[in-house]
């Protein structure tokens, strides 16, 4: 069975890009528009991996991770953050919030899949 990815981004273009990149790569892609929406989808679809943007209305990426990490799950779901920053600062913040890894925007297909590969075993 293919891995289920929940992608959270408030930008439609980004969501489309994520979907267009991940679907052909054999992932099952679910999409959410912001952190709140992401939490809902997270609860509903029980994804194998989450990719989330940081800057979002309602609930930002860090807020999402914090809430998601408190959810009762029989496993810790890998969460990758999408960020336009690449500094150590961002990495430390991502780490502290409970993220598993990060993808620096703008991402290409290779970069995205490579990040996923490092946090999850395919199939």
């Amino acid at each position, binding site marked *: 069975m293919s891995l289920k990815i929940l992608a959270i981004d408030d930008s439609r*273009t980004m969501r489309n890009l994520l979907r267009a990149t991940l679907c052909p790569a054999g992932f099952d892609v679910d999409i959410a528009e912001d952190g709140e929406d992401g939490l809902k989808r997270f609860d509903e679809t029980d994804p194998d991996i989450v990719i989330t943007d940081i800057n979002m209305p309602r609930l930002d990426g860090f807020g999402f991770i914090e809430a998601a990490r408190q959810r009762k799950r029989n496993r810790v779901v890998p969460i990758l953050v999408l960020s336009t*920053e690449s500094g150590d600062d961002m990495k430390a913040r991502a780490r502290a919030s409970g993220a598993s*890894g990060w993808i620096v925007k*703008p991402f290409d*297909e*290779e970069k995205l899949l490579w990040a996923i590969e490092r946090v999850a*075993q395919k199939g």
Partner: protein
Amino acid sequence: MSGADKEDIRSSLFEECEELLEATQDGLNAMADDPEDAEAINIVFRAVHSIKGGAGAFGLEAVVDFAHKFESALDTLRSGQADLTDDVIDLLRHCGDNLADLVDNARNGDNASIASSKQLEERLLEITGDLEQDDLPEFNPITISLDADPLSDVGPSRYTIEIEAKPALFSGGNEPAALFMALRRLGDVEVRASLDAVRPLSDLDVRACAITWQITLTTAGSEADIKEVFEFVEDCCELTIALEDTDDPAEQIAKVGSDLSALGDRDVPAIPSLSDLVQDVDEEKAKKEEKPSAGAAMPKAQAARTDASSKAKSSSTIRVDLDRIDKLINLVGELVIKEAMLSQSIDELDVARGSSVSASLDSLKQIASEIQEAVMAIRAQPVKPMFQRMARIVREAASATGKRVRFVTIGDYTEVDKTVIERLVDPLTHMIRNAVDHGLERPEDRKAAGKPQEGTITLSAAHRSGRVVIEVVVAGGGINRDFVRNLAMERGLISEADTLAPNEIDNLLFMPGFSSKAEVSELSGRGVGLDVVRSAIQKLGGRVAIHSDPGEGATFSISLPLTLAVLEGMVVDVGGETMVVPISSVQETLSPTRNDLDTLGVDSVVLRNRGELVPVIDLGAYFGFRTAPSTLEDHVLLLIASDQGPRYALVVDAIQDQRQVVIKSLETNYQQISGVAAATILGDGRIALIIDADTIMRDLGSSGPGDKQMKMAG
């Protein structure tokens, strides 16, 4: 990702950018209203940030560069490191406009930076100062490409990698197994797990991972490549990477297996379950603490709530080619016509009322009209984006003329047909420019008149009786009627002897030839007068009217049909022809008695109505179907109200019906005819012309007898 996909996403990027630019404008407005509004600046920041992100993915460098600097300034303001003064807001607005220009250029394939960016960037730098480097690291766009290859071409070497995971590695959702699998990209991987430190189950500390791994990697890659694999976990594990020497440390390691897939089958807790353990521990800890409900139960309750509400909101959209919608609208139009034809045929068959045929027909009618409304709604869009464009026009016009303008919009979410909105942009732009240039006084004059230096222009939209009314209210000096009158005389539009009512003087502004290049200032000039504005609006089936109070200001109101596809019309008989009069122009219908009518001159007739004398025009004679009837008692009069002038009465033989008719353009199928707005197809398949009530009045106004009648009524 296929090329078509990419193209699709690219076009969706520009659509989204429009929305984001709209959000930027909204946010800036909110910031201007309340500089303390933290969410407003966040909205702007996020919008600009998203534009940057999207543009970056498509290599739109000019957009990315500018958005980045814009964003940095916003971030500085957001963190309170610089003050949000009026000047700054003004600068941000200019930046918003500039960003919109850059996006526009990029859409047209022009990726070059524009001169205005540089200037604005310099001013933005005054806000950010040297904070730039600290706040936002340089943004290096990487465009979409598929040629990335993490491996370089160096001869293979063997590395020994030892990894010891801290609990944080698991609680952060990382997975050693995934990392080992990922390592296989670099070359041959052999993993051994050391279980030496694993304690007996009785005193196992499940939070700590007692297993360490030793990996032998044969790779052409460098140490940096290996480090990259472990990038995500570098601060939550002990990692040593060494070029392998001859000593085999395997003796110290219990051989669990060389293949990771074998790990899962062992009695030893398989790797994936380690993270499970950590989670369980956390929960147990939470339970042990005295507030069990806070830790474990809450999220569950929350989850249940969100589950319930999640079904409600799933407003997804699809993109549809406009042509398809237009085709649908045309087909629905045909459906309505056919339905009318069927209805007429059934009437002719003389079917009993209440029979199943007429009941079905009624529900068919109902459904047809619902489909029609639903289809029209697809084309309806809020006027907001157009209003925002006008806000920009106001800003530009204000800075060009040195006037200070407060621009207020009302009814941004009023929905109007897309085509109507598109075609309204030009005339409205012109009116707004005019309003700033001619409508508002200079700040010093305003001060002298005891008014605030800032003049207000209000743009509003509202639905009113089946039409949309757009008003431009200029709180300025109003129309200088003496000036207008003199100018009109100079241009030979009126003679000195003409006595004109105030309203008629105001309407001179719309006369062709009233404004000319020489006279109008550089800004609103362009050789276009308000007459062009009026004809553009009339082409949309709209009307424009003017109302002015000297010293107070002026109001221009544009009244437009909600759609260009159907029209509520009164079907009338005139001299054996069937015609349609738009119901929006008909104020009243009446059968005149002899007492209501007076003869004026040789062949002019006026109607006494509500204390006014209203000119009477025979519709048949106007179109040359017949000569005007000598007696009107057995005819019907339609009182036509017009925005542009006095009322008049149209003579017709009889009223057949009042119904929605589908508009078929005469211009696209034949040519424009004065007095005729369009045509329609009736239930019996015949074509009926839809009259243009305003033109009829104007045509008569310029001819001899009509002119006299008009003035009497005015």
